[in-house]
């Protein structure tokens, strides 16, 4: 059975997307605080932060920053809408990475030391996670025989049953996107303050925060696509949500038991673990298919 999400559902989901990302962040801060024996902020804290920032006056260095911030949010919004409407996964991926390019350029556009290093680090991160992300999307396409999100709903078994290892690799991407240690190098508070965001203030900083919400929704959304249960919409929603939460909980635990690593360690880890796992998994799928085909 081909599960087609209704248009209304898609529209609602794309409107809700940033808020889902926001709630994820809110819970994240709360759970992290609980893990650290603290009470922690309210769940809606990220929302208050952003609203407050919109109420502040802006102090910017130049206008180019504003353009890049807007483009960043714009591309991520576009990519979210595409995801919610079951668009092309590759286009979604490329739009996310374009968004990150704009974000990096926003950092580079100001001649400021920490912003510059933040931009550099954003590029190191890109070098680390883009191959993994791209290969994951690719392996989904390889199994689904299509890059369209809606085709995933037409599979016979959940993707996680065939290609579980890319999901592990995607944890690296997720940690980077969530700005969590050990890979929070670009926004490292105690090294480069807040890296690429440092020269933004007020409403434009809020835009970046909102873009971050979108980003989290997108990455966790793509990861939970692995848990689509074919032919059963209710179970699909349940398993996707559960999987999303599980992934997210693991990321919080990792955040709490690790220190931030160097960018070169990150690159090595992502190449050694991230890419290898995907390659191994796809190889296994091929070998199994070959044996099954041969027999």
């Amino acid at each position, binding site marked *: 059975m081909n599960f087609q999400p209704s248009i209304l559902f898609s529209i609602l989901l794309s409107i809700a997307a940033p808020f889902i990302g926001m709630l994820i962040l809110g819970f994240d801060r709360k759970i992290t605080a609980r*893990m650290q024996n603290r009470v922690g902020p309210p769940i809606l804290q990220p929302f208050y932060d952003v609203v407050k920032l919109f109420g502040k006056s802006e102090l910017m260095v130049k206008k180019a920053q504003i353009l890049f911030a807007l483009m960043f949010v714009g591309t991520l919004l576009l990519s979210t809408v595409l995801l919610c409407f079951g668009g092309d996964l590759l286009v979604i991926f490329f739009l996310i990475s374009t968004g990150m390019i704009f974000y990096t350029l926003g950092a580079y556009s100001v001649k400021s030391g920490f912003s510059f290093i933040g931009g550099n680090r954003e590029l190191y991160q890109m070098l680390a996670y883009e191959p993994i992300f791209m290969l994951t999307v690719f392996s989904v396409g390889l199994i689904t025989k299509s890059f369209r999100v809606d085709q995933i709903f037409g599979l016979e078994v959940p993707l996680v049953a065939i290609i579980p290892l890319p999901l592990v690799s995607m944890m690296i991407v997720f940690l980077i996107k969530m700005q969590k*240690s*050990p890979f929070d190098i670009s926004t490292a508070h*105690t090294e480069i303050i807040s890296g690429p965001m440092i020269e933004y203030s007020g409403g434009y900083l809020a835009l970046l925060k909102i873009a971050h919400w979108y980003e989290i929704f997108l990455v966790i959304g793509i990861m939970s696509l692995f848990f689509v249960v074919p032919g059963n919409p209710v179970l699909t929603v349940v398993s996707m949500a559960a999987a999303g939460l599980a992934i997210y909980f693991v990321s919080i635990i990792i955040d709490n*038991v690790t*220190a931030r690593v*160097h960018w070169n360690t990150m690159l090595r880890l992502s190449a050694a673990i991230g890419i290898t796992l995907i390659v191994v998994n796809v190889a296994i799928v091929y070998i199994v298919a070959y044996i099954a085909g041969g027999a």
Partner: protein
Amino acid sequence: MVKSTITFGPQHPVFPEPIQFILKVVDEKVVLAEPQIGYVHRGIEKAFELNDPKDNIFLAERICGICPAPHTTAYVRGVESLMGIEAPPRAKYIRTIMNELNRIHSHILWAGLLGDAIGFESYFMQTWNYREKVLDAIEKISGHRVTYAMNAIGGVRRDMTNEQLRGLEKTMDYVESSLENIEDVMKDYTIKKRTQGIGILTEEEARRDGAVGPTARASGISQDLRTSGYDAYGDLKFEPVVVNNCDSYGRFAVRWQELKQSIDLIRQCIVKMPSGEILTKSNNPMNGEAISRVEAPRGELFYYIKGNGSKKLERVKVRTPTFANIIPTVTMLSKGCQVADVSVIVLSMDPCISCTER
């Protein structure tokens, strides 16, 4: 080679105090680190000459808000030797307890800051949570968490009741078990990755540059002023903690073991605590010169005090451990490191700029 100039400080979240390094970096590699000073200079040494020597205790305490006990100890010991008096044994033991409590709180604080610097937030939170208990113990003894002015010229200001001693013992048990809880952090992969081989200072360099305190002891130099036996240390049994790692991890390890050592020393003090007076009163004139050295959490603290027989001191000179450790730190930085390591290396010597600049 294309270099960038990055200013690390004066206002930077990783350092609570305005330390400034002007870094020349290529990509992320630091090729030149230039320390800049003057952001915290107040002119305390001059103020020592203006105030009454008794009030100076409060001033000495505020040279550094993290280690007030060693500063006041060094100051009062200097003044006592000018006056030719000595504190009673019980006072010496109380001083020792305060010094060791101070060391515990300072080392835990440092460990937390290191965790914060390398992005290990939960570690920062846990250590500082335990540190609060130590501060509570200090407050119960002295009446204040941070600047407790326990020392007085000729002894200590306040006595410790048996109840307080028992409470302190309990606190020590608590701190010890808490520290065991988080001891595994030392084995963590990411912590090792961030500290091992970072900020190398060989024994030779440490001797040449005159490193003191844990920085020297992590480079294999067995140098601990407490072995000279001032205050009650002569009665207590302990060995200086020395490791040979010569890197930030070694400095971490030294401080971690010193925490346990300090807990042990406090227990010894509680057991051996003599009874008697806590203050030797004297109105002897302060004449001549005196040198007073104390092992502060960061290393050797040195006071030179000169009196001319008048009501006020003629000169007080303070050489702080951080001052001695600046050149070793520049040596470490100049070996080439990453921007991310600057905070780790600088923190690994536990800088106290407000001490250094006074």
